[in-house]
């Protein structure tokens, strides 16, 4: 293993210090660990978090028009409740705090604890589960679909809504809608190396890919033969569009009763009338030139089948350390979502119109 680090134990701290040095408008607190900024206006505070190693997720999306704060855990390890608790206290402007939680057992459990603690302190708090990874087929025999790169799209869109002054309830409803309209699927060509583990999490032959891989170096849904990018992207396209309805029970925090309620909810169908926001996302070790090749195949396939790409983003946005590979996210969008997408955003990793 050769990495640009000093000490395996300090890498999360030092990378966040690097980010804070580069972007003085971001404030970094080390114990407990969180990053935040002061929004221009009084608004619902949007708070994300999860394991580190997915850079620029999460802290790279803090700024006007997107996140208010983020709680990074250790590499691939969800953060602890004290981080969310203190960060939420810091960023709450009285309009309430909304947590964005990717659907992993660890993230869910740790954020739930934080929600309970904050409720006890009379903070108006909400929590949204993101579960866009269609590689996971069922929720009965698994922990349910994982939260992956749709997180970026969701945080951008809800970030714009919050900046426009929408309420906590409106932001929650919007986030749930975006989550149900988004699908992602990932493929790895080569595993990442978790620094503390010191060697690649798995080894693939030159003609193999992990198909349906997550963002934590865990193996994918299956190992497939790799021939060329066209074939591979067509397989991913099928997984995304030929995806059956998916119903699952998601826990939501009932602010009135102060308890968790279980809500059965079903994903939205894709159709040919909508526009889609497409994210071709690099997993960390794949160069731009190859991602452009992936986008080409995907765009051609969409054209051929009548799917209408309204907006696109190509690059490393939700990574898995140095994993080689990509994921594709499709978000079915209407006028409202497109407008929120186009709205000004000013963060280290996503910036336009300001």
């Amino acid at each position, binding site marked *: 293993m050769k990495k640009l680090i000093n000490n395996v134990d300090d890498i999360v701290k030092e990378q966040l210090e690097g980010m804070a040095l580069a972007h003085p408008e971001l404030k970094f607190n080390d114990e407990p660990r969180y990053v935040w900024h002061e929004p221009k206006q009084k608004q619902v505070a949007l708070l994300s978090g999860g394991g580190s190693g997915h850079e620029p997720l999460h802290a790279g999306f803090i700024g006007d028009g997107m996140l208010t704060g983020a709680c990074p855990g250790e590499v*691939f*390890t969800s953060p602890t409740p004290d981080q969310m608790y203190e960060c939420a206290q810091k960023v709450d402007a009285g309009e309430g705090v909304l947590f964005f939680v990717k659907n992993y057992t*660890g993230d869910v459990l740790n954020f739930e604890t934080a929600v309970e603690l904050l409720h006890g302190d009379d903070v108006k708090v909400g929590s949204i589960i993101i579960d866009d990874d269609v590689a996971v087929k069922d929720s009965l025999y698994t922990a349910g679909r994982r939260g992956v790169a749709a997180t970026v799209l969701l945080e951008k869109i809800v970030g714009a809504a919050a900046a426009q002054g929408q309420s906590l309830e409106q932001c929650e409803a919007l986030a749930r809608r975006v989550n149900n309209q988004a699908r992602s699927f990932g493929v790895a060509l080569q595993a990442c190396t978790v620094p*503390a583990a010191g060697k690649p999490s798995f080894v693939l032959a030159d003609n193999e890919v992990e198909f349906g891989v997550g963002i934590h170096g865990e193996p994918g849904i299956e190992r497939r033969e790799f021939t060329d990018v066209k074939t591979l992207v067509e397989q991913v396209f099928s997984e995304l569009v030929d995806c059956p309805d998916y119903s699952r029970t998601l826990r939501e925090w009932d602010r009135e009763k102060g308890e968790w309620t279980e809500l059965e909810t079903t994903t939205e169908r894709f159709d040919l009338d909508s526009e889609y926001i497409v994210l071709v996302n690099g997993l960390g070790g794949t160069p731009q030139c190859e991602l452009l090749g992936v986008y080409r195949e995907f765009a051609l396939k969409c054209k051929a089948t009548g799917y209408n790409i309204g907006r696109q983003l190509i690059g490393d946005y939700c990574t898995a350390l140095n994993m080689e590979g990509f994921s594709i996210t499709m978000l079915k969008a209407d006028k409202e979502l497109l407008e929120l997408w186009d709205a000004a955003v000013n963060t280290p990793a996503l910036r336009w119109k300001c």
Partner: protein
Amino acid sequence: MTIEKSQILNWLNSCADIFAKERDYLTQLDADIGDADHGINMNRGFERVKDKITTIEDQDIGTIFKTTGMTLLSSVGGASGPLYGTFFIRAAAAGNGKQSIDLNDLCQIFSDGVDGVVARGKAQPGDKTMCDVWWTVVEALEKSKDEGQDLQQALVAMGEASEKGAAATIEMQAKKGRASYLGERSIGHQDPGATSSMMMVKALRDVVVGQA
């Protein structure tokens, strides 16, 4: 015969030592079916526990467990952090005000603990989680109690049960946690959380009964 508070403290310290030693092994188990961090998580958490308990040695066993749970909760992260955290916080009740515990208490402590884990994580038997060890362990303790075994015998049986519980996860298909994404590919690997639980159980046996 009872387990003294000093032995409980020794146990927690011993867990810290074991997780320092087995860090890479547990991480490797997690690399096979998870995200290669379980050993690192347990090591980080119990290092903190070891530090922390030096400041509360005077307190009762309940407080020691509660503090252990809170410390794990705010230092382990991942799935295992809140689960082991909850385990100890729930386990604390049956140790409240006590300077020593007997077989009955121990049985209650572990059984409350695993109930807490289930309340949070919803695992069912056979889901290939740490619970598969704790259930086997509680069952063994109940049996020892029913059969009137002494503490020493019970702890030996408990240690064996934990090994069985952990080994049994090899053939299971994971239905909870990160390993569940692998579907059938999770079969054939011992669950990392079950393994760390087994290590904790055996550490208690070894502290009280002496190395086997």
